[in-house]
């Protein structure tokens, strides 16, 4: 579980300290204050072994193609595109400090044998080709440093690559999921995770959770059609199953969330705009069920919202686990962003007295 965060020189954050995160942390704030960027900063560390982690950030924000220049690929993650600066993400995870620094390395030339991982990603290539590398230095709790290079290989232009002088397996793997707001979650990935749940005969945990918004749901199944596997739901009085994605945004979102929590424990889940696609009236029950599931599987949820109703619902739904709840409002003054922390009782008073705390 992440408890403390320091982010420097990442996107809109010159320097941001976020203390005392809880098992359930709800982040709010005005538009463009960095709510999603904060989730991305956390995921940058958690997902650093993934060569397309940065490109995935752009993809979740709707940018599917990117020009192959240093500026276009790596510039947006640096505060004010300050490429000469250094990004720092420092987290306390399960009581241990871990950090990554990210900096440009224009001289980097990878030996081919060092390539360890590749992923598909579509990139257009209509500009100069250089060695487009950033150097990611990971510092473990022991103080040991491991350096990774994320780069776009001019000889293999469509595939960003990560190389390391060290075996990536030396980097401790913290289980984490990023569930975006706008993009649909990958149905195949959800099916894989659900399949894991089904193998343990625990698919009913997901069914019960989804019944909060669809009481007619009787069961969930993996259905394979051609090369694709999808999670289908069987509704009462219907003769055949339907893909969950056809049952609405809320169902799809909750399925992704509950399988992320239940299919393997000790996971950190970053969820953008939790209330999207969900009717306000069921939010308290969702928070209550989420709280129980997060505790049961020792998971952490860090999520964003714009909605006062969502905040009220969290307060109502988490009444039996107030110590697990934190609320953070990102606050901008001039070009500095800071985090304002509230606990469960403070939010209770704010709601009771109708204060605008978003």
């Amino acid at each position, binding site marked *: 579980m992440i408890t403390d965060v320091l982010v420097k020189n990442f996107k809109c954050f010159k320097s941001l300290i976020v203390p005392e995160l809880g098992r359930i942390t709800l982040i709010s704030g005005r538009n463009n204050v960095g709510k999603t960027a904060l989730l991305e900063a956390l995921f940058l560390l958690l997902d650093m072994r993934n060569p397309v982690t940065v490109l995935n950030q752009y993809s979740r924000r709707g940018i599917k193609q990117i020009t192959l220049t240093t500026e276009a690929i790596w510039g947006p993650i640096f505060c004010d595109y300050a490429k000469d600066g250094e990004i720092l993400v420092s987290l306390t995870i399960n009581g241990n400090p871990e950090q990554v620094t990210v900096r440009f390395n224009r001289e980097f030339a990878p030996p081919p044998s060092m390539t360890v991982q590749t992923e598909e990603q579509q990139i257009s290539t209509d500009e100069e080709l250089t060695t487009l590398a950033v150097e990611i230095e990971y510092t473990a709790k022991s103080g040991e440093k491991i350096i990774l290079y994320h780069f776009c290989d001019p000889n293999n232009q469509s595939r960003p690559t990560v190389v390391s002088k060290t075996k990536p397996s030396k980097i401790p793997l913290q289980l984490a999921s990023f569930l975006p707001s706008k993009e649909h979650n990958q149905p195949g990935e959800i099916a894989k995770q659900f399949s894991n749940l089904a193998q343990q005969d625990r698919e009913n945990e997901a069914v019960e959770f989804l019944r909060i918004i669809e009481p007619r749901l009787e069961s969930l199944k993996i259905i394979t059609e051609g090369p694709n596997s999808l999670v289908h739901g069987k509704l009462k009085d219907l003769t055949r199953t339907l893909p969950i994605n056809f049952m609405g945004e809320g169902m799809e979102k909750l399925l992704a969330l509950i399988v992320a929590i239940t299919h393997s424990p000790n996971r950190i889940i970053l969820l953008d705009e939790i209330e999207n696609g969900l009717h306000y009236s069921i939010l308290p029950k969702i928070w209550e069920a989420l709280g129980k599931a997060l505790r049961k599987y020792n998971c952490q949820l860090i999520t964003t919202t714009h909605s006062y109703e969502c905040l009220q619902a969290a307060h109502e739904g988490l009444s039996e686990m107030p110590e697990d709840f934190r609320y953070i409002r990102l606050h901008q003054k001039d070009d500095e962003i800071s985090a304002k922390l509230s606990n469960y009782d403070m939010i209770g*008073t704010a709601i009771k007295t109708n204060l605008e705390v978003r």
Partner: protein
Amino acid sequence: MPRPEPIEKEKLILAEGRDAYHFFCHACNFYREVEDVQVMNFGGNDELPNFLSDLTNMDKFDEVNTIVISRDAETDADAAIMSIQDAIKHANNKNSANIPIPQESFKYTNNQKSSMKVAFMIFPGPKLKKGTLEHLCLSTVEGDPLLECVDDYLECAKTKGERFPRAHKNKLYCFLSGKDDFIGSRIGLAFKAKVWPPDHLALEPFKRIIQEM
């Protein structure tokens, strides 16, 4: 659901409950020439520590230059002062805020290191060890012949078995009911209607705090 209330003004009065809230709203309209004060209701005294912590976390709190916190002395004005001081300390510790802490009621802080001044009003007024805002209101109509009738009525009610644990409220609302124009009025509307003479000597400390915000 009413729209959640943001900080909209640089001068804030924090009121204990709805009656006090309306009383201060009308008092500000009367005593001040411009509408530059925001009155906020912090509910009950138990809520004040968290309310202040919430306030320091809110957007535009860093633009606030004056805070007046009010509550009733009830049975012990010194304890009321201490509870507000503790509430401010709680908010300062919780959120690294730097709200100055007054040492006595009806007197603004004068902290050179802070751009904010703070006062608290413990009702009925300075140097009074117990009582409420309603007591202050009643003190402005002392001598009104109607009060004799109110006292007689309440005495009569007692002989019929009624008990008045908050006798000042019974007295105040009996008094207002005895005036045809103010039946059903709360203390705020009564202020607006000048039932409580706004320039009465008993209201002077209150008036001064409002005017010096």
